[in-house]
């Protein structure tokens, strides 16, 4: 699985959690916070992505991600 695949998984879960993003064209530089995800939404997105990737890792490992691309990179590094 490459980085783009991981990013696509994050995008899918973001659409599931944050209302109104169905047609939005996501970029690596997008911030979940700026897209309307509160702290609980962001933790839900990360957990859903971890489950989709069957990746058991503490949530704190992903707290430093500044945008969706960085989150994808951190997740991809643990695969």
């Amino acid at each position, binding site marked *: 699985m490459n980085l783009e695949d991981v990013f696509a998984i994050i995008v899918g879960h973001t659409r*599931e*959690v*944050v*209302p*109104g993003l169905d047609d939005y064209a996501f970029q690596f530089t997008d911030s979940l916070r700026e897209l309307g995800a509160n702290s*609980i939404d962001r*933790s*839900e997105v990360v*957990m*859903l992505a*971890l*489950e989709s990737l069957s990746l*058991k890792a503490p*949530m704190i490992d992903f707290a430093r991600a500044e945008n969706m691309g960085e989150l994808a990179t951190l997740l991809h590094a643990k695969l």
Partner: protein
Amino acid sequence: MHAAESAPIVVSGIGVTASIGQGRRAFADALLAGEHRFAAMRRPGRQKPASDGDVAPAFIGAEIADLRMPDAVAAAKLRNLSWSAQVALATLQEAWDDAELDDVDPRRIGLIVGGSNFQQRELALTQAKYQHQPEFLRPTHAMTFMDTDLCGVCSETFGIRGLAITVGGASASGQLAAIQAIEAVRSGQVDVCIALGALMDLSYFECQAFRSLGAMGSDRYAHQPELACRPFDRDRDGFIFGEACGAIVVRRAADATRTPYAELKGWAMAWDANRNPNPSLEGETAVIRGALARAGLSADAIDYVNPHGTASVVGDETELAALRACGLDRAHLNSTKSLVGHGLSAAGMVELIAVMLQMQAGRLHPSRNLDSPIDAGFRWVGATAIDHVVERALNMSMGFGGINTAICLQRS
């Protein structure tokens, strides 16, 4: 007594969701037509796994087929809401609109949610799904498993800022919420108080425990679910669950913006000092007399009774004994549970609403499956609705743990 405490208290808005209909008009029509939706329950988490890994025969109940959510609730928001919270929002929206609360100062509006342990089915599903992979449990589970999540969800959606709490009284929770809402308005804590009897979302674990306890109906009618729910009938053998939720808006009569449904004339609570599920004649007579006394009414003034009537073998007999002891054997009587099942935490509220909708219609709904009443000396409404203008009614609830409540209503 302070003047505000003696001011008449009325119901100025109603919201209701049950298996037979969503919304007060659909619900009233279905009640008066004697409709029901009793069948083998299909909602995930209510099927009892058999010991061989297959699925055992389902419990009988009445489930809400299709919930219409208000436009104000974004579809995407629903993923984090329990079934109880979704039904609460839809029900509350109707009551809110009906009572025209948009113009009321939100700091003067309160919410009392009746019930506890609402989300047992979702807990069972969550525990089954994540039993072997707890690392992936949703962070939001930490919010939704709490009963007070309903307070948070409803107060956030409607902007309620005056008060939002839950009150637990087992199967009397709905009436307990109504009584606490009355007290909140009388005391001046808020000007308007919404009382909500929340949907208690049972899983098969609770169904099995209720059945083992002898409270829930047996498999006797497994192949004829339409016959299973039969309060006050000689062939009853326990309650049949029904998904339901009801909400009323309580305020002083002088503040109501529309013709009220009814005046809440008298109310009473009494405890039996008994943890067990068995009924108490003493406790039930105490609340009937207490509600009448507070209303300043004699038993003769009550022309309709909506009893608790779970179809429990001992409970129904005790309730009729209490009504007879209080001189209420001449009032008309029917059983709302025979149509919608037992909503547990919602039951007392849904029945209170059924009383007011019958008052409004000038008709009393039928009692289903009352083929052979355990006491034919009462004025039962049988298999068909009857015309009757209710002037003053009594509604009763009882719950495990020895709680009894009664509320007396008068037509506005």
